[in-house]
């Protein structure tokens, strides 16, 4: 669950380039999903599949791409520690943006056609000691230098690659940027978590939504290279898979999203879509035994605070989150520093610590705060 806005960025900035090679389009003032949809060729609207509550999840296929859906991503956040106990945050995301829908059973066009039915984007970031490193890669689909497959799981763009087997639960993620990178082993120690209604996660009061599931109990170990120094790390990770064809609706301005590892083995995913009239909130409370409780807009309270100035405007450096029915009353805080992923479309992606009724760690993504 997560960077919807990043795809918005891809759509708003990227698509005009790749589809029409027209002049750069500025992001619209209202950066809702309606804007996202508007920038795509609407001729294909009716051909894209729209997620619905009854869709359900299918494995291992749902680890792979959904070419008949417009957008999807594979997304990892990790709260790691170095050998001497220093916290290190890490993110990797790969997005697919369909330009033209294609039934999953249909073969992809031959690579030599250089066809442009989809565009891919990968993001990698490392947050360590108040420093935030970020890199972005772009590619077109169907020619081979970016793609995904379900079994064995492979998600790659250039030489960045997540590979392994979903069934065996051990993956390898390798990212090399110019002067930093990481090489990690990811072991899944828990069950898949289907959010919302059997994987259908509503994103508005109108019922629009996405298909969404997570691995919330990843054990991660490996190395991170920063400033020419390779350091060993290990810790917890959270992996999301999500796909849809239309998410935000008109009036939705941005997005606050949290994936938290809490003490006692509890996990919490919560998000808020900020709207003109009434924010849409949703969350999944995951018990140590994997039992998922879904909370709706009336059951979650979220307030931003600790506003901090940043290069892209003011962002909340912390939040207060309450879910009375789960006994949750926590303060979520980003460490000092700037955590903007300065790609085609900048967004805030930072590790967080949790205090209050529960202690813990996690990740926070904020979009739509950019001036």
């Amino acid at each position, binding site marked *: 669950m997560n960077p919807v806005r990043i795809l918005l960025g891809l759509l708003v900035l990227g698509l005009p380039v790749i589809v029409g090679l027209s002049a750069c389009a500025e992001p619209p003032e209202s950066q809702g999903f309606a804007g996202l949809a508007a920038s795509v060729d609407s001729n294909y609207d009716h051909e894209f599949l729209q997620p619905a509550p009854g869709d359900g999840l299918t494995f291992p296929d749902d680890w792979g791409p959904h070419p008949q859906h417009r957008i999807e991503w594979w997304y990892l956040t990790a709260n790691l520690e170095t050998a001497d106990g220093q916290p290190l945050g890490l993110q990797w995301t790969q997005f697919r943006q369909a330009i033209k829908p294609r039934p999953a059973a249909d073969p992809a066009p031959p690579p030599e056609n250089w066809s442009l039915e989809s565009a891919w984007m990968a993001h990698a970031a490392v947050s360590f000691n108040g420093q935030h490193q970020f890199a972005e890669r772009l590619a077109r689909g169907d020619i*081979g230098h970016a793609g995904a497959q379900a079994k064995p799981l492979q998600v790659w763009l*250039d030489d960045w690659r997540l590979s392994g087997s979903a069934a065996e639960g051990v993956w390898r993620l390798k990212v090399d940027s110019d002067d930093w990178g990481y090489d990690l082993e990811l072991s899944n120690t828990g069950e898949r978590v289907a959010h919302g209604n059997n994987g259908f996660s509503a994103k508005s009061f109108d019922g629009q939504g996405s298909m969404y599931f997570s691995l919330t109990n990843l054990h991660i170990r490996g190395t991170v290279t920063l400033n020419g120094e390779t350091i060993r790390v290990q810790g917890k990770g959270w992996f999301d898979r999500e796909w849809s064809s239309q998410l935000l609706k008109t009036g939705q301005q941005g997005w606050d999203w949290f994936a938290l590892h809490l003490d006692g083995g509890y996990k919490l995913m919560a998000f808020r879509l900020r709207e003109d009239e009434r924010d849409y909130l949703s969350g999944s409370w995951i018990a140590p035994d994997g039992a998922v409780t879904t909370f709706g807009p009336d059951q979650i309270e979220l307030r931003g605070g600790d506003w901090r100035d940043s290069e892209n405007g003011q962002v909340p450096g912390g939040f207060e989150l309450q879910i009375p029915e789960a006994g949750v009353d926590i303060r979520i805080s980003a460490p000092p520093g700037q955590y903007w992923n300065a790609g085609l479309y900048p967004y805030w992606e930072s590790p967080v610590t949790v205090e209050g009724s529960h202690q813990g760690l996690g990740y926070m993504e904020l979009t739509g705060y950019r001036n």
Partner: protein
Amino acid sequence: MMVKAMTSHYRRHPLQLLALAFMIVVATMLWTGVSVLTGQARDSLDVSEEAVAAREAVVRSDGQPVSVVDFVALRTAGICAAPWLETTRGDPKVRVIGIDPLAMACFDAPPAGDGVGELAGDPFVDMSEVAGQPGQLSLLISPGTGALPNGYQRKEFRLGPATGQLADSFLLNLDALSLLVLFITGLLVRSVYHLGLAQRRSSFALLERFGVGKRQVYRLLTAELIILTLVCVLPGVWLGQALANRLGQGFGLALDSLFDLSLYGSADTPVPWQAAVVMMALVLGVCLLDRLIPQRRVSRDKPAGPGIFPAWVWGIMAVIGLVMVMQAPSLIWVFIGVALVFAGVGVLVPDFLARCADVMARRRIQSANAPLGRWRYLELAVMFRNLALPVVALQFAMATVLAVQALVTSFESTFEQWLGQRLSAELYVEVPDGVDARTGALTLAQMDGLDAWHRVQHGKATLRGDSGDATGTDLMAISPVTSLVTGWTLLASTDAPWAALSSGGIMVNEQLARRQHVELGQSLRVEIGGQSLDRIVVGIYADYGRPAAEVLVDGEALPEAFTPGFQSFSINPGQRSVDDIAQRLTADWQIANLTIRDNASIQALASQVFQQTFLLTRAISVLTLVLASLSLLVMGWVFFSTRSWYFQLLGVWGVPPDAVRSQLRQLALLLTTGITLVALPLGIWLTWVLVSRINPLAFGWSLPMAVYPGFWIELGVVMAVIGLVIAWLIGRQLAGQESLRPGANLIDGGER
């Protein structure tokens, strides 16, 4: 009251004010238009060069062309590479470059983010639009890229010949032309303005008597000039932008055709305020210069002469300029040389003309109607001396117009002739992809009743220098060699060049000959299809309108491994019908349709492109002529007015009014003819500079030198008509005045 007094002159002579305003507006429009276009072209050139600046290409070590598989192999190995496919598409064929903007994002200066539009629009298109089209796929990398995977190696990436420099030269040429126009405009505006001031001197003297100080008059004159310039420059800038927009399309097409340089979007072209500032500075500078430099005040209205240097210094300066133009290694030296020649000529010519008039006056002493003839020539000598600046300005303007006209006309006629030779066959058949052109050739060879035909293959070759350095070049192969090509006019050739070509010789185009200093009889080492061949140069042919170097060989002598990029047949059908030929070829090639084009339409298309090329130069030329004519009219009229007291004296001496008018006509005609005569040699020399010096340096090819006396006559007639109009206006003025008393200032400093 003061304002009223100051403006009384223009209220009495509104046409003079209008003419001055019109000159400033037209000059601003010209300067702005050219500035916008050349600025836009320079930006485009920068973008185009930046797009591939300092790039290298990855090639396969096994010599096979790279494909999408290689691209993926490189990218997944962590190499930042981007595809680049150059091809043509559409009808008429337009050069396009297929790129993958997403792949290019990994370069240090990616075409993403804020600069995402940099590679937007023509000629860049998405790879998916041109995939499968004939053309060479290149995989670009940055020079700093680390080690490549096994099986790949790097090589220098070039878009083709170094057209950037040629395009720059072309733009420099345009700049120089517009600078010349600017210079001429400055002289013209100054002349008209100062002649107007001469007319107003009696008014200023009157003001002085009423207690208005000279300083105040100067201040008011300055304010008047600033307001006039502002009022004229602003619409001039607007009109200049409109001119640039109007000519932009043709200019872009011309740049694309000549230099493979595409003009990028101009929707957000900023208002060229710099051009307005330049024009403001120019007009104010040339008109107020005398007041800014105190020592100049003294000599302001003195007859022009060699001035600060003796005449021989100006003469030597002109000679140095002439030598410099002949020997110049680059355009800038040509321009400096031209400037020296113009400076020398500009200073010496008025005095020369005045002396000629003096000589003629002395000769008249012996003739029958001696007094009037003598008066006429002496008056002419006075005019040449007093009108030195406008005379020179008009001479320069006319010389420029003559030269540009000669350049454009000789280009058109040469190009028409050349294109006629190149497209001498009636039909043109493009060989479709995937078919064997050889079977087509066999079919044509076996068809009875078919007239001359040949197969043309285009591809690439590499020239090896003595030191082993390699230069890529275009290759054209023709077979069989028939009357369709043997009629070509070659720039240089050995005896029986076409027979020599068929016997293993090679021809090169002018661009290659100039760049590589290739001469007839020289042996060239050419690599074609992986095979190295030594060939003797048997001819140099003209290849106008494109910068690429090219070699021409007999198609029969091509190595088997050569793969043509593009093939066609040129056919004279003779007794066969077009349908018949099409039917046979489609049957042989097993294709559904075959497009056969008649060469007349291609020729028309090509001519159209080149018409556009010179639209801008024509516009500059015509507008300069308009400026020059108008200024001649205004200045002639004004100056004749200042001499009207002397003209009236003729009547006092008993010369009948008709005879006075006749004398005025003759005087005006002598003035304009004198200027035309001195403009001619300068114009011819400037023509030579354009076709034989500037053109090869700017375009890479030269044009034959041609002169067009018909146009001289046309120009002479225009000048004569203007002279007659001046005489008529003055005649009317004299007739309308019972008696004209000269004011003290009117004749102040003038010669009698």
